């Protein structure tokens, strides 16, 4: 998957996400989720990583089931005090839950199979403004350094019992936020000065090569999957 052209992956993912939202059948999100799970397994992404990736969408999926069972209406399945639980609402909630998990998996597959520089190259090709793309690249570049710095400072605070209670934890978090901002600001000034000295211009991501045979196969497979899903949806399968 990582060798496939990022433009093909972004276009394929966008099509799947739109189909996932637009086709209102159980079968479509179920098939998308299955296809993405197979892709992740074929890409040797550890199951633990896959589970972590779906944990956040899954918590919202539960919220969707609960809210729809109460609010979406239909025949009453059961009552808890004054609150009625509806059968059609429950079914709609389950459909939403499937849609959330399927959509989450599509984004995860795109994210884990495509490095940020390739995503940014593709975004430029799709005419996303250069300023935004460069900003995204620069933020990503500094993200891990900044996080390491935060972790080091927090560890130092913990070793001085800075988080021993909620009260001094709050004081420590304020100091941590302020110290991080000041360090980031100073490092930003130094980096800016260094860039000015070497006459830095726009970030050059390099242009993408023309799509190859693998990209063509991946594009055709994605198009076939999208077409099949639309066909199944129009045919009323899995309603």
């Amino acid at each position: 998957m990582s060798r496939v052209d990022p433009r093909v992956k972004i276009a394929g993912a966008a099509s799947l996400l739109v189909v996932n939202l637009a086709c209102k059948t159980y079968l479509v999100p179920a098939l998308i989720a299955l296809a993405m799970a197979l892709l992740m397994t074929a890409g040797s992404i550890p199951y633990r990583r896959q589970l972590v990736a779906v944990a956040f969408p899954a918590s919202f999926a539960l919220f969707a089931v609960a809210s729809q069972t109460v609010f979406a209406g239909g025949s009453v399945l059961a009552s808890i005090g004054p609150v009625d639980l509806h059968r059609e609402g429950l079914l709609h909630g389950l459909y939403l839950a499937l849609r959330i998990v399927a959509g989450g998996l599509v984004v995860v597959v795109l994210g884990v199979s495509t490095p940020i520089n390739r995503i940014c190259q593709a975004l430029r090709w799709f005419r996303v403004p250069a300023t935004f793309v460069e900003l995204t690249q620069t933020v990503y570049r500094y993200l891990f350094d900044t996080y390491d710095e935060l972790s080091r400072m927090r560890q130092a605070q913990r070793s001085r019992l800075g988080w021993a209670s909620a009260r001094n934890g709050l004081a420590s978090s304020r100091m941590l936020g302020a110290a991080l901002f000041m360090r980031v600001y100073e490092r930003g000034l130094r980096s800016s000065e260094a860039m000015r000295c070497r006459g830095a211009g726009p970030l050059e991501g390099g242009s993408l090569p023309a799509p190859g045979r693998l990209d063509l196969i991946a594009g055709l497979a994605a198009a076939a999957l999208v077409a099949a899903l639309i066909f199944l949806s129009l045919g009323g399968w899995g309603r």
Partner: protein
Amino acid sequence: MHIPEGMLPVEQAAAWYAPALAVIGAGVARLKRKIDEAPEYKAMLGLLGAFVFIISLLPVPVPGVGTVSHPCGTPLAAILLGPLTASVLGSVALLLQSLFFAHGGLTTWGANIISMAVAGSFAGFGAFRLSRRLGAGLGIAAGLAGVVGDMTTYGVTSLQLALGLHGQESVLVVWATAFASFLPTQVPLSLAEGLFTAGVVVFINRQRADILKGVELQP
């Protein structure tokens, strides 16, 4: 709170993109002018964007609940950088969070930009400016910004969820229910965010007042 991929109907997901792109477009155009004047400003923006990203992951103890949560970070960023810049940096953080941390989504990116990056920044900054004009001290004004920005973010997120999930109930009832269900955790969390924002701004002002003069305080 990030709305995950697949949560909103397709037409609503598309509709939230329109205002989000308008605000981000205006912010990017403004940043482009600045970068054209001084290309080295990019490094500063990148680091501040990483700060906004990281700050939204910073653990803050929630009083009364006995747990730890995370600030939105956008009210603080808006005070330090201006709401438009904070909105753009927030949108970049949301994009990276959805792609690499499965927080949020791509079709819900527009909705998340509006609730977290735009509403949190502008409401927080508005509360800060208004309270400063009314004579509040720096700490009180920053604290209010944190509380207002946080509650506004959750109010808008609840509205987005209510519009998407109201079913046969009225939007207002579902919005009130969703917002009320967040309150037990959200009130203490917003108070914690207020204390955190006030503490950070006061600490910076005490240690490095020159930084607060250097960063942008105008929208």
